[in-house]
C-alpha cells in the first residue's frame, strides 16, 4: 500500500487528539507539549499509520526526542514512510 499523504497523517493526528478530548490546532507550528501530545500519543499515531499502509515504521528514541511541533510530527512520519 502507498504512503499516506501529509494531510492524511494530519487527519489521523486529529483523531488521536479528539479521542482525548483535545483539538487539533490550525497551525503546524503548535507546540506538542502545550497541546498535551506525548510520546506515547506519537506511538499511537505511528501505529495507526502502520495499520493503514501495512508497513512497519521502526525508529529509535533519539529521533522521537527531536519532535516538538505538529510540523515535526508530520515531517518525521513522512521521513519514516520514505525510508
Amino acid at each position: 500500500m502507498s504512503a499516506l499523504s501529509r494531510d492524511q497523517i494530519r487527519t489521523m493526528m486529529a483523531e488521536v487528539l479528539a479521542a482525548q478530548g483535545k483539538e487539533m490546532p490550525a497551525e503546524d507550528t503548535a507546540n506538542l507539549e502545550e497541546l498535551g501530545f506525548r510520546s506515547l500519543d506519537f506511538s499511537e499515531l505511528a501505529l495507526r499509520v502502520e495499520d493503514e499502509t501495512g508497513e512497519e515504521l521502526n525508529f529509535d528514541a533519539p529521533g522521537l526526542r527531536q519532535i516538538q511541533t505538529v510540523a515535526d510530527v508530520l515531517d518525521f512520519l513522512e521521513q519514516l514512510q520514505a525510508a
Partner: protein
Amino acid sequence: MSDLPPIGPASVVVVSGGSRGLGLAIVTDVLDRGAKVAAFARTITPELQQLADAHPDRVLVASVDVNDHKALTAFIKDAEAALGPIDALVNNAAVGQDAMHIHMSPQQIGDIIATNLTSPLVLTRAVLRRIMARGGRGRVVMVTSVCAQRGYSGLVAYSATKGGLDSAMRTLAREMHGRVLVNSVAPGFFASEMSSVLGDQQLETIARRTPSGRMVEPDNIVPVVRTLLFEDTNLNGQVITIDGGSSI
C-alpha cells in the same frame, strides 16, 4: 572437614569488548595487577593496541565479533597458546538500546539478544570448558546493569538480556560448585559510547537523583571487578550493584 581450598586469583583473563569504555579500563587494571589478558572487540582501538604493544607477553588482542562463534572458539584457542591456561572471563561486550519496544523490529530485538545474552553464554561455555578440561578452577564476572532490576523506558530488550545474564550467573554459580566463582557487577548509567545517546539534561537528572550525589564512573566499577577476579572473598552467585544508590 571437607572444605575446598579457596579459588586462587585469576592469572589469564578473557575480556570481551575490551577496546573502549569499561572494558578497556578492566583490561588496563588486570594488567596493572600483573595478570595476562586476552581481549577482543570488533574493532581494535589505538588504546587497546597500545596496551598490546607495551606488554607483548601478557596481552593478546584480536578483532572478533562475539556473534561469530567459530571465531570466538578460535580466539580462545589462540589465547591459550599465547598466554597459557585461561582461568577467568569478564563478559563485558554488549550493545545498548534507545528505542521503545513497540517500535523495534523483531530483527533488532533478536540482534540485541544475540550480542548481549546468547553470545556471552556461548563465550562462558567456551571458557568453562577450557577450565574444566584441564581440571582447573576459575572465575567469571558478568557485566550486567541496574536495568535488570529497575525499569527504564527505551531499554526493554537490553534489560531482558541483562536480567537473563544475572539469572544464568546464579545458576552457573551453583552448577560449577567449588570449581568456578561466578558473579555479576550491575552498574548504573556511566558516560561511555553506549550511553552517549543520553542528553546533558538526562545526565544531570541521573546525577541529581543519585543518593551518593554523583554518577557512576568506570573507575568505581573497576575495583569491584578486580576484587571478584583476584581476592578471596567467597562471593559467589551475587549481583553487585554499583549505582551510587540510585536503585535503593
